[in-house]
């Protein structure tokens, strides 16, 4: 509770840090903040137009033109949010070492800023994607609301992993070194680019152990097929996310003081 209070006291700092990070990305560019829209727009165009019209990639079981493109976007965009939060959070304490050592402020503001920034980026790109769905007539309708709980689980899992790694990274820099490779592996081990049913059944069983598989499947089901996701399958990632958040906080409480000494 004390920590929440401290966060609230520093809300202005959090807000302007988010603003500042966003602005600093586009400082000294001619187009300014429009890049925040242009980049994802180009990306979505790439996935949709190129894959559906140029490469004629098709998703098994549907004859829709854009089905694979939407499948790809649903996976990649939500994975993007996940990987942005984890990769930023695992370096956040190291990057702000100077600040942490010299100024007494609630340290939990830092992960909050990370989440918020990633969420803004995601909102822009996902907003454009949703617009595309609306325009092209693929908007899933009321099922769209299912995305909210899915996103909550995804963010919780990302920050749980991110904080844990962020703290460990202060003590064991191997984390930072290996993180880039591991997240690549993880990406390819998750059915994002390919549908899960192209895998042999034994491998499918293994892939299903990956908590991101049911979670991203939820996004894909919702957006591609316009169906409610399989809620039971979300239980596993949800509980894991909760556990990871708890573990991260526990680690933080236990090692925060030592962390400052180590920085």
């Amino acid at each position: 509770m004390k920590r929440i209070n401290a966060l609230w006291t520093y809300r202005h700092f959090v807000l302007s840090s988010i603003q500042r990070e966003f602005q600093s990305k586009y400082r000294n560019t001619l187009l300014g903040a429009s890049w925040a829209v242009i980049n994802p727009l180009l990306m979505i165009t790439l996935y949709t137009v190129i894959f559906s019209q140029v490469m004629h990639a098709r998703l098994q079981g549907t004859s829709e033109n854009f089905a694979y493109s939407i499948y790809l976007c649903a996976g990649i965009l939500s994975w993007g949010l996940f990987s942005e939060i984890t990769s930023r959070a695992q370096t956040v304490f190291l990057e702000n070492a100077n600040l942490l050592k010299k100024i007494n402020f609630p340290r939990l503001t830092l992960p909050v800023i990370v989440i918020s920034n990633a969420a803004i980026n995601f909102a822009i790109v996902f907003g454009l994607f949703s617009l595309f769905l609306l325009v092209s007539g693929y908007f899933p309708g009321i099922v769209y609301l299912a995305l909210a709980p899915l996103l909550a689980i995804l963010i919780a899992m990302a920050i749980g992993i991110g904080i844990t790694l962020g703290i460990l990274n202060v003590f064991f820099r191997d984390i930072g070194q290996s993180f880039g490779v591991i997240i690549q592996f993880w990406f390819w081990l998750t059915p994002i680019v390919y549908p899960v049913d192209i895998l042999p059944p034994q491998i499918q069983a293994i892939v299903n152990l990956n908590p991101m598989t049911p979670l991203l499947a939820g996004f894909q089901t919702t957006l591609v097929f316009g169906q409610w996701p399989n809620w039971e399958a979300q239980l596993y990632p949800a509980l894991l996310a909760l556990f990871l958040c708890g573990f991260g906080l526990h680690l933080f409480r236990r090692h925060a003081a030592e962390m400052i000494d180590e920085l």
Partner: protein
Amino acid sequence: MSALCIDRLSKAYRLYPNRWARLAEWLLPGGKPRHELKWVLHDISFTVQPGEALGIVGLNGAGKSTLLKMITGTTQPTTGSITTSGRVAALLELGLGFHPEFTGRQNAFIAGQLLGYNNEEIKRSMAQIEEFAQIGDYIDQPVRIYSSGMQMRLAFSVATAIRPDVLIIDEALSVGDAYFQHKSFERIREFQKLGTTLLIVSHDKAAILSICNRAILLNDGKIAMQGKPEAVLDYYNAIQTERQGRQITCNALPDGQMQTQSGSGEARITKISLLNAENEPITTVYVGQPIQIRIVVTINQDIDSLVLGCGVKDRFGQMVFGTNTYHTNQILCDLKRNETCVYTISCLANLGVGSYSIHASLVRSHSHIDKNYHWIDNASIFEVINLDKVEFVGTLWNEMHFQIEKSGMQPALKHAEPALVIEKQASTDNLGEKSNREIVIVDIGCRWGFAEKFTRGGYRVYGFDPDTEECNTLSRRYQSNSVSIVPVALAEGDGTRTLHVTQEPACSSLLRPDPKLTEVYPALSCARQVSSIEIETTSLDAWARRSGVPCIDFIKIDTQGSELEILKGATITLQGVRCLEVEVEFNPIYLDQPLFSDVDQFLRKAGFILWKLTNQVHYSKEGAPETQIGEDAIFYDEKQQIKHPLYGGQLYWANAHYINSDVLSTPDSEAQQLRDITLFTTLGMPDVVSHLVGVT
């Protein structure tokens, strides 16, 4: 309540033999610690009061920064506790968190938020931040084009925009140019005056000496010394030069100053004396006097080279002037054991009024780092007084000539004529010659004796008390022609009155003590009546006529309620009185007693004006006050405000000081003016004196 309380604070860093050891400690069951603790601070305890400034000095690695970080709250102590009250702000690294691409204003906002200010506070302070930082239009330019000085100024302005309760300053005082440094010092001082506690870590000795009330020397993570900044810095100096573990001693001199000595001892200073031009030892020096410092040095071992350094330090330990025989090309070479050298240094004591000390050191060459034979700080302490110079401030005497040109109708004045003023000031020392007659002091209710200042030459003192026994005691104490004790009770006129004798004889009065009062205020039990006697009274006018005392310059009345009667019986005498000190009551202690308002009205009609109230006495039901209930302030000239704590209780009495309104107008004669100057100087009212000196 203290602003900062540090209790048995220790800090250790964990030291692992390798990185795997930490992983093993974390993961392997059993929880066996695999680290060693490296203690950087041991058992540090101190408290700092609000408004106090504490300097922390120590060699690099002594643990100063760790200590500050723990107080700031970024680092956690291993054992012990830190209690702070109020907001703690730290000027540890200015400009931290500034982003080069953003404007000064945006950065000021972020830096402020990082310090925990809310947006409203920052918006309110923004104008003041801009003004203080003095970076003009640059405030809306990106910080990357700022000079480093501008960045620092902005950062300092933000960090100090809102007064914290505890301000931690780590080497941040040397910000910007000399002018800005001055300004930042001012601001810090102002904070201190308003109750901010300061913690200063600096290698700048001048800064510590000029700001801190107290200093702590950290050495190897322990408090090596704590006390007055001068003493601590002297000791620190000694440590710096004596890192090979030679002996350092620290002696308390009789006046409470600390003397630090160190050195390897091949040559020793055996005697330091301060002499006047006639070779007589002195301890008091007047401004501009030619003085000699004589230093006797004994050689204990053959040495190849000897340099004597000598200087004068002010009471803050700052060197006022000093040099050594290396700079004057007087190095002594090849000295043999048991030789003795006598150095005599002559100079003029062009020093300001105050206390100074002599510093002397014996070294091998020009600096004490090379080889330090003997080093003494605070060797000999002397006072400088001003005998014949105009009044001046500062630690240095320098003749100043004012040339004043006035434009307007009158021809320009070439010289303000200071001659008269100087003569008058000088005359306070040899009064009696020009002021023609002695100054007459009357003390009514003189139990317990007179102030020392009136029993010196130049005054004629009459003391009145109705208690004959007390009068006999006083007569024996003052066996002087200039003091007379008169065992007479004064009132408005001749007659017989009842003296109500109280538990404490000093509270006895011609009026009856209010019996109910002592029940309410236990502390007023001194005024409980125990008996009564009949006594003869007379008036001051009648006494003066009979005794042939034509003129009284100062009257002090402390008579428990009968002050108005006495004054009414002194209407003739009062015409010549220059100053009065009357104990007045604001709430009655005696039945039907006249109060301050009555006395005040009467004295105003008699041509007196109230100058000040002192010694305000409060009574509370609980007896002595225990808890402060608030703060009150005295304002001077609307600009200066001095706060003082306020305790409970009801105001009962005070001393009212009145001066004759004639004193402030043009004096009748020069003799009268000189008497006034002398009298008010003695009374400790220099503000009135400056009035008088101004009236020429």
